[in-house]
């Protein structure tokens, strides 16, 4: 895919029946960006919520007022969806719940800042009170909790062997229970809950990352994690498997093996600007986990 002509589709739920959509949608696919936006998105496989900050330049006063949200008002639940990419080829890079939205004037620009978190409603509000009888499998329990999350659908659930030798009762915040019962293997990404072991991955649309795919610089390995920057890559999924092919990272010190190979994507950070007027940067920082042994692809649940 040529990485030219950055474009986006931003849908913000506002009070009332209709969502605010930028750019204003035209028939026949995505429209060119009409408002400048900046975004900073962190998605990872941790059990905490993924977060996103979007800055929109120079919305009308009416739209600024519609979007506004106090962070103290947890009853005002509105969604935000950001799809981005190149030309008409857009991928969802964030889908979540708005936690705070406000507008300020900076110089000549009115800037609306939207902060949101993925699966926000579920993290804050979902509670579980369930009893599992002796013999219930660990996998069944995790699926039961995962599928009970509000506004979140069940994604991939890996192999979690074992069953209860005694009955079990669980009560509390559902996401905290999932984190505890899965041993920290659960995460919500783009409105889907995945529960994957260290050696389990989901299928992703980007099988290989190399210079041709937009790899920038030399990947760095620290604490068994590999990180690198690449030209904004919206299709990358957290939890997917990739093959890293760096022409420089493979040249380890004498006697030290390089670290090209197959990895699991454990974090994706998108930050950048998409604008009809300003060039700006758009970079994706990718974190990979090193796993000795084969990675198993886990199919996602069919909805």
């Amino acid at each position: 895919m040529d990485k030219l002509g950055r474009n986006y589709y931003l849908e913000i739920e506002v009070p009332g029946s209709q969502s605010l959509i930028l750019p204003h949608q035209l028939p026949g696919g995505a429209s060119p960006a009409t408002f400048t936006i900046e975004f900073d998105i962190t998605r990872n496989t941790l059990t905490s919520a993924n977060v996103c900050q979007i800055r929109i330049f120079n919305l009308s006063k009416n739209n600024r007022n519609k979007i506004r949200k106090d962070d103290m008002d947890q009853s005002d639940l509105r969604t935000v969806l950001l799809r981005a990419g190149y030309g008409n080829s857009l991928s969802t890079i964030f889908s979540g719940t708005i936690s705070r939205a406000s507008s300020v004037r900076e110089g000549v620009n009115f800037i609306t800042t939207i902060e949101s978190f993925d699966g926000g409603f579920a993290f804050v509000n979902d509670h579980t009170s369930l009893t599992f009888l002796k013999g219930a499998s660990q996998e069944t329990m995790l699926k039961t909790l995962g599928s009970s999350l509000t506004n979140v659908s069940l994604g991939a659930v890996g192999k979690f062997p074992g069953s209860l030798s005694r009955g079990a009762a669980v009560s509390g915040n559902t996401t905290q229970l999932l984190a505890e019962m899965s041993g920290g293997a659960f995460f919500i990404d783009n409105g889907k809950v995945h529960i994957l072991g260290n050696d389990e991955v989901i299928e992703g649309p980007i099988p290989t990352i190399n210079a041709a795919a937009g790899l920038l610089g030399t990947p760095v390995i620290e604490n068994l994690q590999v990180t690198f920057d690449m030209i904004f890559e919206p299709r990358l999924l957290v939890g997917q498997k990739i093959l890293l092919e760096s022409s420089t990272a493979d040249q380890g010190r004498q006697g030290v093996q390089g670290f090209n190979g197959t990895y699991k994507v454990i974090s994706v950070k998108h930050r950048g600007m998409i604008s009809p007027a300003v060039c700006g940067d758009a970079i994706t920082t990718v974190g990979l986990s090193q796993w000795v042994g084969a990675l198993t692809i886990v199919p996602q649940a069919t909805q």
Partner: protein
Amino acid sequence: MNDNTSISLNTIPAEPTMSDLLNLLKREIFLDLNCHHLATIQSFDPSVQTVTATINYTKTSFVLNEGTGKQGSYKPVQSNYPLLVDVPVIVIGGGKGNITFPINQGDQCLVLFNDRNIDNWFQSGQVGPVASSRAHSFSDGIALVGLNSLNTSISGYDVSRAVFQNGTTKIGLAEILILITNSNGKSLGTILGNLTQALSSLMTALNTAFALPAAIGSPLDPAWSASVSTIVTAISQANTDLGGLLE
């Protein structure tokens, strides 16, 4: 205050201080931490001495007021805690001895939540690794049966004896004497006292009866008379001993 739905919350939006945050964190930890809960027995499996139990109060959650849609406010909603299953019961014992009780549905109990997972211990009774990392979980309860609310408080609580009671029969241990009573209220001490008294009277009557022929020229066998006297003395001693043991 009895209205548990009106939990006061400071809803004035303000930037919290570190102290506020730490207090909230402390409260959150307290709310998440299970130490012990009051519960009611729903069933008892005497073969493995486990119960299922329901916790005796409901959980308050704040959920969106559905009546006013997404822009509505949160309202407190009461919901039940999960049913506790396969909960081992504490049976008082030691060595090869134990005291068991007829545990029934409806009995009140205190459920103690162990610090760590008890699954492996429950299966084997051995020292070993825990089956999971859970801590203070609802799944690791241990029931202590015998807790009473005002509704089930024991009437006529005996403050001078240690009492082992089932229904209307009881054994009471005073500091010196033992009281054993049945449903009629008669004590074993009274019954045995009456018995020894009757035996003593019987022996006296027999002795008198057999002594009569001596008065009319047919002397009683001295050996028989001595035996009767010994038995009467023994009965008298037994009566005295029972009086020192039983009320």
